């Protein structure tokens, strides 16, 4: 039972990092990405490759993972964010679909469908973190750091620029904001921070393959943000915990067909998202967002 709870704790912390970083662009910059699992995966594969071939030190693995994800996100965001919001949704969906193929086919780096096995545990200044308890602490500390960074950013001039753009693009332009550049920067930061979760995930599982980084994962992360509360500090963490506890909780309900738990979970959060949008667009934690009544030119 303790092992089960620790494992759940690690997964909640890592997914909370993903949810917090996705919320950073969704909630504060108004950018909707269906490719967050791609940056999670890029971080995982990059971190695992470094750990397998070079060094399992956290100070080598994590920065490499962050750089790779940041570079990839720059390639996506630079052109796609020049145009309307729908374009980024389309481009990110396309990237997600393409990335699954690349993860499954690029055998030299990703190990193909079989994935990468025997990834060594992460090493912090000579100490290997492999017991579930110590890894849980590491993932909690990392989550706290990521939350602190995004909180700092949101309250800085950069965060004010993001919120200004979200509230009124035309007014932000009229006050000298380079919208495309600011949005691109936010996407790159978000992807780099998501890659931290990816590299830790690889070290924790010691095995990764494409299954963990498919569209379903991107959808799950987005559901965590939305159900928890977009644009709130606590919401994404609550959402991550809720959606990861849900399958376990569902399996206690013996009248449900146990083989369909995954589907039932997805139906629940799919409907949950729709119902929330109709009745409470701010999410569980968020206050109800009121209409601003501003037309954009």
């Amino acid at each position, binding site marked *: 039972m303790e092992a089960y709870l620790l494992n759940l704790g690690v997964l909640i912390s890592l997914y909370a990092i993903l949810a917090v970083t996705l919320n950073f662009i*969704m909630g504060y910059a*108004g950018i*909707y990405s269906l490719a967050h699992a791609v940056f999670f995966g890029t971080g995982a594969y990059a971190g695992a490759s470094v750990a397998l071939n070079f060094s399992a030190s956290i100070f080598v693995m994590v920065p490499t993972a962050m750089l790779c994800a940041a570079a990839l996100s720059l390639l996506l965001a630079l*052109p*796609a964010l*020049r*145009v*309307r*919001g*729908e*374009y980024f*949704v*389309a*481009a990110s*969906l*396309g*990237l997600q*679909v*393409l990335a699954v*193929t690349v993860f*499954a*086919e690029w055998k030299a780096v990703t190990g193909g469908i079989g994935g990468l096995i025997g990834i060594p545990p992460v090493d912090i200044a000579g100490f290997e973190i492999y017991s579930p308890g110590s890894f849980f602490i590491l993932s909690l500390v990392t989550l706290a750091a990521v939350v602190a960074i995004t909180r700092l950013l949101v309250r800085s001039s950069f965060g004010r620029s993001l919120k200004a753009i979200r509230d009124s*693009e035309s007014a932000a332009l009229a006050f000298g904001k380079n*919208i495309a550049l600011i949005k691109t920067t936010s996407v790159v930061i978000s992807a780099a921070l998501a890659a931290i979760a990816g590299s830790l995930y690889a070290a924790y599982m010691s095995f990764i393959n494409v299954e963990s980084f498919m*569209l379903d994962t991107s*959808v799950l992360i*987005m*559901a965590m943000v*939305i159900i928890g509360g*977009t644009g709130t500090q606590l919401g994404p963490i609550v959402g991550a915990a809720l959606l990861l506890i849900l399958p376990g909780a569902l399996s206690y309900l013996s009248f449900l067909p146990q083989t*369909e738990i995954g*589907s*039932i979970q*997805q*139906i629940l*959060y*799919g*409907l*949950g*998202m*729709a119902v*929330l*949008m*109709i009745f409470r*667009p701010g999410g569980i934690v968020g206050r109800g*967002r009121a*209409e601003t009544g501003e037309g*954009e030119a």
Partner: protein
Amino acid sequence: MLWLQLAITGLQVGALYALTAVGFSLIFGCTRIFHFAHGATFVLAAYVFYYVESQGYGTAAGVLAASVAAVGFGVLMDRLVYAPIQRHEGSFFTVFVASFGIGIAVQNLVGMVFGRSFVTVTTPLSRSVEVLDGVYVSPLAWIAVACAGVFFLGLWFFLRRTNLGTGLRALADNPELIRVFGLSPRLLSTYAFALGSFLVVPAAVITGATAGLNPALGHHVMLISLAATIVGGIGSIGGALVAGFGLGLAESLALLQFDSQWTEAVTFAILFLFILLRPSGLFGRAATS
């Protein structure tokens, strides 16, 4: 003759893409609603046809049932999901998330009811005939292209020559104007959903008999619809049509060079190139904000 074979397959696939994409483009262009659950409409129609057909009720009954399912789903989405959202806010975000959530729920419901593995509708029409030396074409290919032609001519006639069609086109340009003329934008919106959803029926039915079905197909359908809408130019129905055919051809002809698992990468590459070089699309008005 491989290229000719691939080009014909490409036309067949392209016709189905074009039908689906035009449905999405029509809804998005007229109502500005980002109907991400359009993929779910496709999956629903395809599986309803598959079920009715496999129970032995015949093709006509299957098509009818699929049409009812598609149109019903589209109209219900408009009435029960989008209408209430638009009453209190209606931002891109809320509409997209609600639509997206319903799409996920439908995909999993279909998966629970019909299973997650591939299913195919068997019909003698999918059996290929050698038309030229080494070039095989199934009657379904011709049916697909013919369907596309008939539907687009019908749509064109409808939008240009009927009052309702004129109303729909005006809705795209200026919803305020609609009110001035005493028409209801909400009612027109429902018509746009009914029509746009109906357009996926031939594509869904034929896909069931050619490529086969699985519940996760909805995302692929959405990617194609979005790509065709952007490549064709947002708001241009003709653009979505041309782009749908173009994407089908490109995916098929890419097989001359690449393995089949890379076909979606081709779609992405084309979409990305357009976003990079020509964001307003083939026939679109300027898209930059």
